[in-house]
């Protein structure tokens, strides 16, 4: 069981309260596809990913970014049992989507960076520590059902 301090819970809630899921989702996913181009392998059906501009303007990517953020919100609302909350999602990513779990960390790093750009100095080192702890629990839960 993951232990969360009150400060960590407060930090993570505060960060989420400042996020526009459409904006952050689009920025995070497109950044991941640009910075780590091999991740594009999972988005063959998403149309034009030919260059950075195409990726940034791709409506299917933007829509999927929102989907990812909504998924993270589920973890936020079930922080004391992320593992079970994500059991089905983990099976989906493994059995249906066949996503290499190493990619979860890449996306979570991009999310951290997008949030840092958005929040500036209010994204303190303590906030970063809390948020990265949250993301590492999410990443671990997503990988749990792989076999």
């Amino acid at each position, binding site marked *: 069981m993951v232990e969360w301090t009150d400060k960590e819970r407060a930090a993570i809630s505060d960060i989420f309260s400042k996020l526009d899921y459409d904006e952050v989702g689009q920025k995070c996913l497109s950044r991941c596809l*640009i*910075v780590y181009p091999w991740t594009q392998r999972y988005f063959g059906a998403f149309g034009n990913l030919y260059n950075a501009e195409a990726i940034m303007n791709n409506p299917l990517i933007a829509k999927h970014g929102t989907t990812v953020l909504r998924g993270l919100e589920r973890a936020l609302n079930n922080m004391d049992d992320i593992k079970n909350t994500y059991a089905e999602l983990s099976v989906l990513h493994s059995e249906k989507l066949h996503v290499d779990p190493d990619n979860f960390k890449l996306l979570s790093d991009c999310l951290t*960076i997008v949030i840092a750009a958005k929040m500036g100095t209010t994204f303190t080192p303590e906030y*970063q520590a809390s948020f990265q702890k949250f993301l590492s629990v999410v990443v671990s839960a997503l990988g749990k059902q792989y076999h």
Partner: protein
Amino acid sequence: MSLSAKDKAIVKAFFGKVAGRAEDVGNEALSRTLVVYPQTKTYFSHWKDLSLGSAPVRKHGGTVMGGVLDAIEKIDDLSAGLLTLSELHAFLLRVDPANFKIFNHNLLVTLAMIFPDDFTPEVHVATDKFLAQLSLALSEKYR
């Protein structure tokens, strides 16, 4: 994943801007490394004060950023250019190279924080590649 001419141009241009705030950036990146990855504090047990913005942290952050900026001057042959620094890290400091990745991540977060409009995805990927090559050159003399 070696650096293309375009990568080098992007890195030089962006860090030309970063250089003006080198000490702030270095301080922020190092502070985050120590707070978010507490195991890194083991290398600084000789400092009395490891808190955010303390004098030794600020000074050392500046030193490390100086090294990064210097590496950009030597971007065409990082292994040769960073030979002495690599020997320092390998034989004297003996920093586990896994920590280079940790510092690089916190540097990227800091750059996004301080230069949100300039740290575009294109600048991000070029910088990430450069820092990876820098870390490789720094690890050169380890074994």
